[in-house]
């Protein structure tokens, strides 16, 4: 089965030139993008399967000797294409700050404590139904100096491949009702409200496990629609 990638779908993305997010000012291309035909270089992509994904990579609370501090959560959902069909056996990589809003990254200087029991990196491969599931702790908000009193709403970074390089996306998942949304130029760089809502996970009582962890559902829709080649009319 082959996929097509209608260019209109790209309108959901932010513009790289989003000046409220200051780091874009010197990093967004100033020349117009050149429309690229979809050749084999674009319509193919790496397939990872379970290569590089170890048992336990999807449970970020069990990567160290002790348990991390913070609010334990389950983040699960389905990876779908634009027709709503599951994208099975595709790699999902995530990374996040700890419950205090601090990243393990060496260049994170936010004076909030590191947690010796939390790295904040995870990987999973979707099942036949396109579903993934992570166990982690809820990341904290953190300051980032983009403007006076700038704080990122709590988020988890997601990286996905899908069927080809045309479906490759890196994004961020947010939590419902965050009061920081309206002040965050990265979240607001997605100008269409409906598209922006697709970045926000949904609290789900049925995903929530009693006496253990809150559950959030986050479905991810990748580019790609079903291309149905119609047979040439029979001329005999």
């Amino acid at each position, binding site marked *: 089965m082959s996929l097509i*990638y209608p260019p209109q*779908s*790209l309108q959901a*993305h*932010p*513009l*790289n030139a*989003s000046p409220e*997010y200051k*780091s874009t*000012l*010197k*990093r*967004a*291309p*100033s*020349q117009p*993008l*050149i429309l*690229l*035909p979809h050749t084999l*270089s*674009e319509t*193919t992509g*790496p*397939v*990872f*399967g379970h290569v*590089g994904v170890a048992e336990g990579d999807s449970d970020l609370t069990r990567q160290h000797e002790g348990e991390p501090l913070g609010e334990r959560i389950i983040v699960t959902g389905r990876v779908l294409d*634009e*027709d*709503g069909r599951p994208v099975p056996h595709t790699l999902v*990589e*995530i*990374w996040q700050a700890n419950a205090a809003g601090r*990243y*393990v*990254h060496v*260049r*994170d200087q936010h004076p909030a404590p590191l947690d010796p029991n939390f*790295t904040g990196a995870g*990987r999973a491969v979707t099942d036949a139904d396109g579903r993934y599931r992570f166990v982690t702790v809820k990341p904290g908000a953190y300051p980032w100096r983009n403007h006076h009193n700038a704080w990122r709403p709590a988020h988890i970074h997601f*990286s996905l491949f899908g069927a080809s*390089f*045309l479906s490759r*996306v*890196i994004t*961020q998942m947010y939590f419902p009702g965050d009061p920081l949304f309206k002040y965050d130029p990265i*979240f607001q760089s*997605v100008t269409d409200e409906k598209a922006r809502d*697709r*970045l926000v996970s949904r609290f789900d009582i049925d995903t929530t496990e009693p006496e253990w962890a809150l559950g959030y559902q986050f479905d*991810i*829709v990748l*580019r790609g*629609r079903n*291309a*149905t*080649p*119609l047979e040439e009319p029979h001329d005999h």
Partner: protein
Amino acid sequence: MTIETKAETTLGITPSQTIGPFFAYALTPRAYGGPELATEQVATDGIAGERIRVEGTVYDGDGLPVGDAMIEIWQADPQGRFHASGNAGFTGFGRAETTSEGRYFFETVRPGGLPGPGGARQAPHLTVSVFARGVLVRLATRIYFSDEAANDGDPVLALVPAGRRDTLIAQRGGDGVFRFDICLQGESETVFFEA
């Protein structure tokens, strides 16, 4: 052959967001001791073909190095074949983080030419994605090679204004290394594609 889409309604795609500055411990975690999905070593042992090294620096609009970018490449093998699976042999996929000086490299094999639109042959090239803090949506570009005669007939290079084509062509130095700088913005801005 006609192409039509079946579904009446479609779901909107999940919008892109920046990779941010702190991805390394998850996506390029060598310095953190984490398992690497892919590295700058694309040519694995036993893969036939001409070994090449491509290196360069990523610059911003002020000409300053971008020390927190991730570059991914994707390519055909020397016979022009893409591998459907990374489970064995040549994956054709590489991933590198820029150094604090904005530098990156890949060691791989020279890809073969490929079929292109309208029956035209595409010259050998690497497909490149650039992610960085301050980049909200993946920047797509290509690396062609200065010593390939097929560049002249390449249907994608032909879409690029002649004056900017050079930004897509890695120049081979006397040491045999292909040099390809990526300028996100400014006078020598690299050509980026809407794909």
